[in-house]
């Protein structure tokens, strides 16, 4: 049985997916990166491999996410692509006529505009975490409400309170103010959801041409309160795909499938990489006044790649390996 592996390694979460030749998802994993992408990937691979049929042959691997280069080197990827391309690929796979993809993650958010099967515009949050999941995480801690239950609380609200402020800090003080006035929790939670959506639309999605069908994916897509708030602001139905949390991995697997096209020459190093010894080391290069901080990635004690040098000479060294 032929399969394609996709791995999306982000700063907050790592997700993996394996698709068959027809593009059906046969396995998926979602775990937290916890600041250690290599360990997360190895753990994820170990876990996902236990679900697989014995005769599965991986014919292509794709990686994406902020740690895509590192992961690609570790596992032997055939395709390494940015998150926008990967997410768009997955979205179109499940909804071929999709025109807008809204993605709200833990710390990054994106919007992707698709026309005729091509990404023609996109937006990413830059400095600010407004319009990302972290906004909710902090408030859930304050309110003592688990983030997973936010949705059901929000849906019970009949009149969400208006929480102002572009910034988490301002929003929090406003929220406390409303709490102290005795506003019921569902109304506050619903208000928070609306505030996040407003921030997202004013920030990440500003100036973008949002048209339906609209897909909503990313870790926060499970939150039905946010979905409702989005539908309210945009005035259109929002679709949450079945595999909303692992779309990046699915997209990478699809990209691998597209590239390899059935050929047998995948660079995949096999699931054995879970046991490989990897190390990352950093040092300051003193060869010029830029004093770049260079990151060195080693597999089994051998340096495999370098990042962080402005002049590129360390990177060039890695290409020799």
């Amino acid at each position, binding site marked *: 049985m032929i399969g394609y592996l996709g791995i999306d390694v982000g700063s907050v979460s790592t997700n993996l997916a394996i698709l068959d030749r027809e593009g059906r998802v046969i396995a998926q994993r979602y775990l937290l990166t916890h600041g250690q992408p290599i360990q997360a990937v190895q753990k994820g691979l170990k876990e996902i491999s236990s679900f697989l049929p014995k005769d599965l042959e991986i014919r292509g691997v794709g990686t994406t996410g*902020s740690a895509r280069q590192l992961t690609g080197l570790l596992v032997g990827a055939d395709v390494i*692509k*940015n*998150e*926008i*391309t990967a997410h*768009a*690929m997955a979205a*179109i*796979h499940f909804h*071929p006529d999709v025109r807008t993809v809204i993605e709200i993650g833990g710390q990054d958010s994106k919007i992707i505009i*698709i026309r*005729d*099967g*091509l*990404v*023609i*515009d*996109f937006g*990413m949050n*830059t*400095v600010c975490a407004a319009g990302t999941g972290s906004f909710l995480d902090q408030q859930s801690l304050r309110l003592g409400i688990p983030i997973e239950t936010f949705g059901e609380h929000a849906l019970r609200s009949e009149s969400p309170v208006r929480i102002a402020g572009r910034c988490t800090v301002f929003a929090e003080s406003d929220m406390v103010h409303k709490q102290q006035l005795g506003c019921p929790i569902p109304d506050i939670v619903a208000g928070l959801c609306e505030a996040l959506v407003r921030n997202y639309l004013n920030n990440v999605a500003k100036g973008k041409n949002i048209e339906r069908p609209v897909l909503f994916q990313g870790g926060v897509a499970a939150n039905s309160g946010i979905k409702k708030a989005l539908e309210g602001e945009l005035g259109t139905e929002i679709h949450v795909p079945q595999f909303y949390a692992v779309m990046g991995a699915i997209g990478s697997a699809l990209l691998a499938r*597209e590239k390899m096209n059935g050929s047998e020459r995948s660079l995949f190093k096999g699931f054995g990489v879970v046991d490989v010894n990897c190390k990352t080391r950093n040092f300051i290069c003193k060869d*010029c*006044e*830029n*004093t*770049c901080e260079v990151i060195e990635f080693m597999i089994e004690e051998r340096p495999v790649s370098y990042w962080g040098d*402005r002049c590129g000479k360390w990177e060039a060294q890695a290409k020799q390996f």
Partner: protein
Amino acid sequence: MTTRIGIPRALLFYRYFPFWEAFFQTLNFEVVVSRPSHRGLIEEGFKFADDDTCIPMKMAFAHTINIKEQIDFLFLPRLLSLDGKTCACPRLAGLPEMLKYSIPNLPTILDPYVDERHRNSTLFQSFSEMALTLGKKSKGIKQAFQEGEKAYFHSKKRMEKGEKNPELFGKAIEKDPLNNKERLGKKVAVVGHPYCLYDPYFNFDLLKILQQSQVFVYTQEMIPKEVIDLEIRGFEKDVYWDSGREILGASLHYLHTTQIDGLIYLTCFSCGVDSMIEPLVKHRIEEDGKILYLCLMIDEHTGPTGLLTRVEAFLETLERKKSGRRMT
């Protein structure tokens, strides 16, 4: 000992340096330019710059600090209007004062005021007056001016032919003259202020990244002024900023002649000119629908990865469009 004239590697250096260098060298001055931007230089300089100003201005602060100890005079021309019709961003004309009041122990500033809209502040006149105060004679000044013009037009011609930044400007980029463009699959125009486009520290070496991705890069310098004027004449407003006019005119030209697959507008946070010009460029391109558009806005928090992701996604779509491989 030869007198040393210091020129910060910032702002209009990236357009007119060949002129200035030839002018001063012909008059037997030593021209001292600050080092190419690097982290230490920038971090040091930004401390002195006002928060509310744009990054290119802050870089001028940084580069001034880099050379101020090694020179006799600091050259900061106020080039308000070089063609008698358009004007430059007013911040450029206020730069000498902004530096003077923020950085201690600056050498004497040479700040010829050039406004070709008025008879007694032409380029020749202002530069001559400056050279006279430095003790040079008229005959020599005239010759120096001619050398300056020659050098400037020479560099202009090279850029019109497609050279991205003649070696003078810092890190040399692999030349890819026009006859390469058929070999390279994707054609992308990159427009913006020269100091955004040609300082590789500022834009994370964007031009090099593009060229390494098999992209032929078109710039606004490749379009002769007459063509830009023609495009602006056909536009609903005669834009009064020289840089804005050039950017808009070039973008319209590329749009109308459709020789390119995509256009990247490279700008920085808090640029007044770009805040008005970019929406105009974006609108025209999106309305037309044939060229892919990307606006890259760089601010002090921009990191290389964010920029790279955006550029990659942009190029991915260009690839797919050309090869017909849609994502279905």
